[in-house]
C-alpha cells in the first residue's frame, strides 16, 4: 500500500527508495556534465555542488510526509519519558504538585456536583418550591413557619394560578403491632399525588393514585427501602399483605427504591382532603401542620409565585379575623426552591471551598510551570544544540509540550487516585444536616472528564510558556554561554519570580481564609454558654403511645415525670436530674407576654420553659435575686416564675422584678394550660445561651412543669461519668414507670452541640486548612526551587565576591534578601486580595471579623518564617561556595 500508514511500517524500504531516487538524479546530472565535456571528476564535483546538502534534501523530503510526523510524535514521547526518568526528582515533584491540585479540585467538584447539580432523583425539582410565612415585624424579619393549616392548603390548591401541581404532607408516629410487641416508626400522610409529583418509580408494587385515601376506599400504605430492609429483611413477599398500623389494618401496595427520601418518613399513608377522609384529623392540636411543596408552571418566576400565594393567604387570614396564634400582625409569603430549603447556606460554604481549591490548582500549575522553566533554562544549551543541528522551532516546542503532557497524564492518574481517597475522607466529615439524604457523592463520569480537562489545561498553561521561551532565546548566545543559560536567564528569572510572587499571594489568601475559619470555629466552640455542657445527658420522652392525648391532664403528666426524674436521679453516676421541655442551648417556646400594671407592647416576647425544682442546679445557673422553686411550689403547681437576667433587664430595668406578675399569652390558646393566668416572679437567675450557640441569650421565664399537661418533656441530668454510658439505664428507668413511653432522642449535650452547631463549620475548617496546608507546601517547593536556581546562576558572581573578600554572612544575607523581596511582594498582594475576598466569606464566619488582625498577622508571621526557611538552604549553600570551584564552574 502506498498510503502513509504503509510507509510508516516499511520505513527502511521508504528510506532506501528515497536514497535511490536522489542518487539516480545525481548520476543523470553527472552524465550530462560529462556529455558537456567535463572530466568525470569535475562533473561529479559540479553535480554535488548543485545538489547542495544531500542529507538536507532527504530531511526536507521526509518532513513533507505525514507518517514522519507521527513517527516524530512517538519519538517525542519516548524522548520525554527518557528525559523525565533521568530527572526523577523533578518529575516526581511536578507530578505530585499537579496531582494534588487535580485531586483536590476533583473532590470539591464532586461534592458540589452531588449537592447542587444532582442532589435529588426527583422530576423537575428545580421548579419545586416551598413556601415560607415570614413575619415582617421588629426586631427583624423572620421565618415563622413552613407548615400550613388545612384551610390554607385547600385555599392555595384551589385558588392559585401559578402551580402545575401541589402536594402536602405531615408526619406522625406510627405504631406497628405484629402480635409480639409494638414498635414505633416515623410515618407521614401524603396527598395522593405526592409520589407522581416526585416522579420516582416504586421499586416494587405501585405508588398512590388519586383514588387512594378517599372515604370508603381500603386503607393502603407504602414503605421506604430502609425500613423494608431493616424490619423485613427485604422480603418481597410482604407486598400486598395487611399490617396493623395505629390500630387499623392497612395493605402494603408499594416499596420505594433506596435513593428516595421524599417526605422524610419510613411509611406513607395516602391523604385525601375531602371531609371525613382518613388523615384529616390531625394527631396534634397544632393547626399548622401541613408541609407543602409545589411545582411552578413553566415560565412562572418566584416573585410571581410568592405574590399569588401571598394574596390567597392574606384573604384567608382576613376572612378568619387574623387569629393571632397563626398569623403575625404583618406577614408575607415567600418562596424558596426545594433545593435551597434543604441545602440552604451550606451551598455558600461549598462555593467558598471550590474557590479555595481553584486557587490551590493555580498554585500547583504555577509550581509546575516554575519547575519546567527551571528545567528549560538549564536545558537551554541542549535545545540550542538541537536547533543548530536542524530541528525546527515548531519541532522543539512540540517536543517540550509532549514532555509536559506526559507529566500531566501521570499527574491525572495520580490525581484521580488522590481524589478517590480524598472523597472517602471528605464524605466522612461532611455534615449530614444540609445535604439531602438521596445525594450520592462519588466520582462520576462528569467529574473524571473534569479532571482530564484540568490536566490538559494544566499542560497548556505549564508547557507553553517555557517552550516558547526556550525557542525564542537566541541559540548562539546560549551556545556561547556557560551552559547554565546566562543568555535568556534574565528574562526567565523575571517570569519565574512573577510566578513565585503569584503563588505566594494565592497561598496567603488560602491561609487567611483557613485562619479565619479556624478563628470562627474556635470562637464558636469557646462561647460561654452560661451552663456546662460537659457531662450532661438529655432524654426526650414521648408518651404518645397511649394515643395522641394520653397523660393529657397536668396531674397525670406530673406524676409520670416526677417518678421518672426521681428514678433517674437515684441512678449511680447521676449527680442531679431535672425535668424540662427544651434541650439547651435550644430552650423554651416563644410567647408574647403581658405584665400586670404595664400597658402591653406588641413586641413583648419571651421564651418559656417548664421545669422541676432541680433545674437551676442541674444547669449550674447562678441565683441573682430571690429564690428558685421549692418542692412544694412544683407539687402544688403554683403560678410562680423564675426569670433570667435578660428578662429582668429588658422588662423591668431598674425596677425590682420580684413580685411582678407576668402572663404568657401562648397559654390562652393551648389545651390543658392555665388560661388568663399571671405568674409571680420569685427569682432571677443568670443567663445562658437559650437560642443557639451564637445568639445572645433571649429573655426567658421558667415555670413549674406541673401547671400544664401540654407538651412532651425532657430529662436533663448531670453525671459523674461519661453521660453516654448511662443512656441505657435511663431508658430502663423510664420503662419501669411506663413500658410504653418511648425515648425519642437522647445523648450527651456535648454530642448534641456537635451535631447541631459544630459539624458544618468543622467541615469548613478541615477542608480549608487541608487546602491551605497543601498550598503552603507547594509554595515552599516553589520558593526553594527558584532560590536554588538563582543561586546556581550566581555561583560565578558569588565566587568573585568571596574571592574579593566578602564575608560568608554577607553572601547569606544577600541571598536571603533576594528571597525576602519575592516573599514580601507576594505577601503584600496576598494580604490585599484577602482583605477584599474574605468579606465575601463573612456570612460563613460567625464570631470573627473578616479583617481579624490576629489572623492576618499570624498568617504573615507564619509565612515569613516558613518562606525564609525555604530560602535558607540555597542561601547557606551559596555562602559555603568555594571561590576556586565557583570560578572554574564553566
Amino acid at each position, binding site marked *: 500500500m*502506498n498510503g*502513509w500508514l504503509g510507509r510508516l511500517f516499511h520505513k527502511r524500504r521508504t528510506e532506501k527508495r528515497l536514497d535511490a*531516487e*536522489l542518487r539516480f538524479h545525481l548520476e*543523470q546530472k553527472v552524465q550530462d556534465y560529462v556529455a558537456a565535456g567535463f572530466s568525470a571528476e569535475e562533473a561529479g564535483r559540479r553535480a554535488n555542488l548543485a*545538489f547542495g546538502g544531500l542529507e538536507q*534534501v532527504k530531511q*526536507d523530503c521526509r518532513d*513533507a*510526509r505525514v507518517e514522519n510526523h507521527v513517527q516524530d510524535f512517538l519519538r517525542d514521547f519516548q524522548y520525554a519519558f527518557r528525559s523525565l526518568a533521568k530527572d526523577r526528582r523533578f518529575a516526581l515533584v511536578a507530578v505530585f504538585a499537579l496531582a494534588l491540585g487535580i485531586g483536590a479540585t476533583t473532590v470539591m467538584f464532586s461534592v458540589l456536583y452531588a449537592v447542587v447539580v444532582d442532589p435529588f432523583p426527583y422530576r423537575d425539582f428545580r421548579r419545586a418550591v416551598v413556601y415560607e410565612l415570614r413575619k415582617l415585624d421588629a426586631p427583624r424579619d423572620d421565618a415563622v413557619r413552613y407548615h400550613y393549616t388545612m384551610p390554607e392548603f385547600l385555599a392555595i390548591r384551589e385558588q392559585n394560578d401559578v402551580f402545575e401541581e401541589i402536594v402536602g404532607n405531615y408526619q406522625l408516629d406510627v405504631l406497628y403491632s405484629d402480635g409480639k410487641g409494638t414498635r414505633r416508626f416515623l410515618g407521614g400522610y401524603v396527598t395522593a399525588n405526592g409520589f407522581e409529583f416526585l416522579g420516582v418509580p416504586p421499586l416494587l408494587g405501585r405508588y398512590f393514585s388519586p383514588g387512594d385515601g378517599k372515604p370508603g376506599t381500603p386503607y393502603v400504605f407504602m414503605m421506604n427501602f430502609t425500613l423494608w430492609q431493616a424490619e423485613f429483611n427485604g422480603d418481597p413477599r410482604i407486598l400486598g399483605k395487611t399490617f396493623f398500623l395505629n390500630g387499623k389494618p392497612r395493605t402494603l401496595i408499594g416499596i420505594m427504591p433506596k435513593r428516595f427520601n421524599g417526605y422524610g418518613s419510613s411509611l406513607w399513608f395516602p391523604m385525601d382532603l375531602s371531609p371525613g377522609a382518613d388523615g384529616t384529623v390531625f394527631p396534634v392540636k397544632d393547626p399548622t401542620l401541613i408541609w407543602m411543596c409545589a411545582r411552578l408552571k413553566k415560565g412562572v418566576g418566584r416573585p410571581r409565585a410568592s405574590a399569588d400565594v401571598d394574596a390567597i393567604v392574606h384573604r384567608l387570614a382576613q376572612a378568619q379575623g387574623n387569629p393571632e396564634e397563626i398569623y403575625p400582625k404583618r406577614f408575607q409569603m415567600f418562596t424558596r426552591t426545594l433545593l435551597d430549603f434543604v441545602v440552604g447556606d451550606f451551598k455558600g460554604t461549598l462555593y467558598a471551598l471550590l474557590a479555595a481549591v481553584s486557587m490551590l490548582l493555580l498554585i500547583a500549575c504555577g509550581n509546575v510551570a516554575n519547575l519546567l522553566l527551571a528545567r528549560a533554562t538549564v536545558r537551554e544549551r541542549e535545545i540550542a544544540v538541537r536547533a543548530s543541528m536542524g530541528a525546527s522551532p515548531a519541532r522543539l516546542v512540540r517536543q517540550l509540550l509532549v514532555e509536559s503532557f506526559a507529566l500531566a497524564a501521570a499527574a491525572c492518574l495520580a490525581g484521580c487516585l488522590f481524589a478517590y481517597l480524598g472523597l472517602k475522607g471528605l464524605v466522612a466529615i461532611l455534615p449530614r444536616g444540609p445535604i439531602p439524604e438521596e445525594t450520592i457523592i462519588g466520582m462520576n463520569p462528569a467529574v473524571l472528564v473534569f479532571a482530564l480537562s484540568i490536566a490538559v489545561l494544566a499542560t497548556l498553561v505549564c508547557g507553553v510558556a517555557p517552550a516558547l521561551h526556550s525557542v525564542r532565546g537566541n541559540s548562539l548566545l546560549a551556545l556561547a554561554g556557560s551552559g547554565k543559560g546566562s543568555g535568556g536567564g534574565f528574562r526567565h528569572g523575571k517570569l519565574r519570580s512573577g510566578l513565585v510572587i503569584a503563588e505566594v499571594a494565592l497561598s496567603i489568601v488560602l491561609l487567611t481564609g483557613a485562619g479565619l475559619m479556624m478563628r470562627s470555629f474556635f470562637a464558636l466552640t469557646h462561647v460561654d454558654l452560661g451552663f456546662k455542657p460537659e457531662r450532661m445527658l438529655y432524654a426526650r420522652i414521648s408518651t404518645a403511645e397511649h394515643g395522641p392525648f394520653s397523660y393529657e391532664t397536668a396531674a397525670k403528666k406530673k406524676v409520670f415525670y416526677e417518678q421518672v426524674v426521681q428514678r433517674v436521679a437515684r441512678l449511680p453516676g447521676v449527680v442531679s436530674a431535672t425535668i424540662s421541655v427544651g434541650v439547651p442551648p435550644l430552650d423554651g417556646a416563644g410567647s408574647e407576654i403581658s405584665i400586670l400594671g404595664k400597658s402591653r407592647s406588641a413586641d413583648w416576647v419571651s421564651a418559656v420553659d417548664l421545669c422541676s425544682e432541680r433545674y437551676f442546679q442541674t444547669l449550674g445557673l447562678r441565683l441573682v435575686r430571690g429564690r428558685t422553686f421549692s418542692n412544694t411550689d412544683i407539687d402544688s403547681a403554683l403560678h410562680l416564675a423564675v426569670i433570667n437576667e435578660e428578662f429582668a433587664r429588658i422588662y423591668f430595668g431598674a425596677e425590682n422584678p420580684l413580685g411582678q406578675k407576668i402572663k404568657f399569652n401562648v397559654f390562652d390558646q393551648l389545651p390543658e394550660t392555665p388560661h388568663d393566668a399571671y405568674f409571680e416572679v420569685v427569682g432571677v437567675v443568670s443567663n445562658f445561651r437559650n437560642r443557639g450557640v451564637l445568639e445572645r441569650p433571649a429573655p426567658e421565664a421558667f415555670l413549674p412543669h406541673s401547671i400544664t399537661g401540654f407538651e412532651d418533656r425532657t430529662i436533663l441530668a448531670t453525671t459523674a461519668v461519661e453521660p453516654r454510658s448511662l443512656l441505657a439505664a435511663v431508658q430502663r428507668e423510664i420503662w419501669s414507670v411506663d413500658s410504653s413511653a418511648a425515648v425519642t432522642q437522647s445523648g450527651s449535650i456535648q454530642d448534641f452541640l456537635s451535631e447541631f452547631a459544630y459539624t458544618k463549620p468543622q467541615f469548613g475548617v478541615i477542608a480549608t486548612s487541608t487546602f491551605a496546608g497543601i498550598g503552603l507546601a507547594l509554595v515552599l517547593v516553589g520558593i526553594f526551587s527558584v532560590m536554588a536556581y538563582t543561586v546556581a546562576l550566581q555561583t560565578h558572581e558569588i565566587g568573585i565576591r568571596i574571592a574579593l573578600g566578602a564575608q560568608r554572612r554577607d553572601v547569606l544575607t544577600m541571598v536571603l534578601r533576594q528571597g525576602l523581596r519575592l516573599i514580601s511582594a507576594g505577601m503584600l498582594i496576598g494580604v490585599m486580595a484577602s482583605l477584599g475576598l474574605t468579606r465575601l466569606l463573612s456570612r460563613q464566619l460567625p464570631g470573627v471579623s473578616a479583617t481579624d488582625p490576629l489572623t492576618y498577622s499570624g498568617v504573615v508571621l507564619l509565612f515569613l518564617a516558613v518562606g525564609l526557611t525555604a530560602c535558607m538552604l540555597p542561601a547557606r549553600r551559596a555562602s559555603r561556595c568555594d571561590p576556586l570551584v565557583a570560578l572554574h564552574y564553566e
Partner: protein
Amino acid sequence: MEQGKAEVLKGTLDMLILKVVALGPIHGYAISQRIQQISKDLFQVPEGSLYPALHRLEDRGWLQAKWEETETGRDAKFYSLTRAGKKRLSAEMVNWERLSEAVALILSTAE
C-alpha cells in the same frame, strides 16, 4: 545561482511540476530538465526544492509514483498525475491567470 537564471517564482513550483507531469509519466531529473528547457533556461529548479515538493505533492495525493525502467534500462521513480492532481492543476492555473492579469493591469496603468 548563475547570472540570468531565476529561481522558480515562489508558490508556482507546485503548479509547474503538476503541469509538466500532466504531459505523461516522468522522473524527477527529467522534470527539472523539462522546466529548464521550456522556460528557455530562465527557470532553474534546485534539487533541494524539487524533491521535497514532489514528496509533498505525492503525500497530498496529487501525484502518484511508480518505479519503472528508463530508456537506458535504469530503475527510476516515475511520477504521474492523479485525478485530484488534475483538478488541482486546473484550479491553480485559473488562479495564476487571474493573478498575472491583475499584475499586468497594474503595471500597464502605472506607466
